């Protein structure tokens, strides 16, 4: 549920109030770019996609229907926009043949049923993840921090630590499972 002030903000934007819109933009832009970079792995494209979201809101504010929270809504928008972009440009799983991609999409549909953001509060979840980092085994923690906080690629991490890229992948995966166990009560479902 939106709180009163959030409702007010949304109403003002719908009325075309630029100050409110500027506030919405400036308070979310950088975080949405982080989100998009994590999916797109290209800084400029990621920023363009975030920009698209805001241009769309400004041009058709009537479509702004928010049920959970403003930031939740924006994360959802950028998530869908990024996935659409990858699919449209055939950049998603570009190493796979079309049939395999199709099978993946059937099993894990990108629509609402398979939406990873349903029912979670990203801001809160991020805080919990941050607090759980200390519980990771040392090497795993080091790699997870380089990947998540410093945004280093697998290649860069491998070079920096003198390990193979596969080790990086495995450690990141292990970090995810460990986090999942630690945060279980916080994940819906």
């Amino acid at each position: 549920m939106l709180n009163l002030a959030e409702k007010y903000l949304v109403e003002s934007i719908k009325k075309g109030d630029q100050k409110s819109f500027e506030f919405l933009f400036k308070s979310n832009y950088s975080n949405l770019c982080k989100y998009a970079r994590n999916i797109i792995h290209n800084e400029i494209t990621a920023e363009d996609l975030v920009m698209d979201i805001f241009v769309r809101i400004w041009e058709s504010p009537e479509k702004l229907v928010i049920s959970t929270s403003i930031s939740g809504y924006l994360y959802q928008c950028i998530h869908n926009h990024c996935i659409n972009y990858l699919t449209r440009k055939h950049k998603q799983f570009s190493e796979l043949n079309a049939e395999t991609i199709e099978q993946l999409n059937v099993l894990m549909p990108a629509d609402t049923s398979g939406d990873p953001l349903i029912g979670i509060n990203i801001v809160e979840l991020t805080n919990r993840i941050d607090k759980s980092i200390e519980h990771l085994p040392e090497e795993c923690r080091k790699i997870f921090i380089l990947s998540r906080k410093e945004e280093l690629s697998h290649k860069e991490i491998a070079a920096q630590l003198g390990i193979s890229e596969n080790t990086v992948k495995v450690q990141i995966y292990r970090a995810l499972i460990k986090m999942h166990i630690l945060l279980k009560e916080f994940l819906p479902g």
Partner: protein
Amino acid sequence: MKEMNISDSLGEAIEGYYTNKLTQSQAEELLAWLGKNEENKHYLLELGKVWYASSQLSTRETDANNAWTNLLDKIEGDSIRPMPKPELRIKISVLYRVAAAVLLIAVLGIGSVFVFRFPKTKSQIAYFEAFAPKGSRSFITLSDGSTVWLNSGTKLRYPSNFGKESRDLFLEGEAYFVVMNNPVMPFRVETSDVWITAIGTAFNVKAYSDEGVIETTLEKGEVRIDELDESKMKVESTPVFLKPNQKAVYVKSNKNLSVNNTVQKSPIPSNEPVNKIKTNPLRVDSYVDTKLTTSWKDRRWIFKSEKLIKLVPILERRYDITVTFRDSVLSSYKFTGILKEESLEQVLKAICLAAPIRYEIMHNQVLFFENSGQKNKYFKPIKNN
């Protein structure tokens, strides 16, 4: 859900699924596993939540101000929409009582001073810089025994030989000085535009680079204030001497004004009298309540009939936030109060209780709105007066 037993190769495939780097064989392994049961699909999805949310841990920020300018170009190229004007245009000067009170973020003097050395310059003088970051305050004792309180977002620079041959400091921001008496070695504080000289006194200097004025308030003793020109030399005009409970206000723009006049002289016919509009940028106010100026260094922050627009820079520095006004009328609302150790949330709530204001906060951005529904409630009693 029971714990999953997953091989490293499947783990790599799951990681590849989210990093968009699946090889054909990984994809096949993943598909086989996903096809086994719903539970596996659910598990993959849950790991995804953690993965996507973890993107927010990144410390790499993208400059939103720059992007905002680009966005404006984009949307204004398409269509310019009229902005709604604030409904109320009369100037409101109402004294609101803020019952509650603000904070002191860091315990004074603990942990929040960052002092570092500047590399030695040619003349072999090293400089120290003490810095109180936004959202905290601190205090330091100098080698001559003088004490300095630094307000949020303040830098104080001094040479390593401070107190040996001279007592010179450079200040950007706000500081309160209690100066040890030493008639042979004056204590001098340089700011962007003025130079303050003291022998043994207690005084407050507010010289933030993003504010248009430099204020010097004297509590005890005597100080001398000289204006500095562009090359940081003393201007050869009469200095201002302050007595206790006096405040000198230096208006930076008045200095610029006088410069502008000189430039504009040429188009004016020569028989015109030489433009003498130059307003003295230094003004002295007597009988000021120094507590109002210096209370920031104590646990209490006192303000009296202060416009919201003036309180905002202080709030911004104290809490490391950026404030935007949706309705410009709010900026002239006046507040009086004593704030103690309050959280940002409590201060904002107090403001909203005291005046028809609503706020929205996201990350470190705060937006103030007019609460038009509540406005009548606040203005009625004033009309009755």
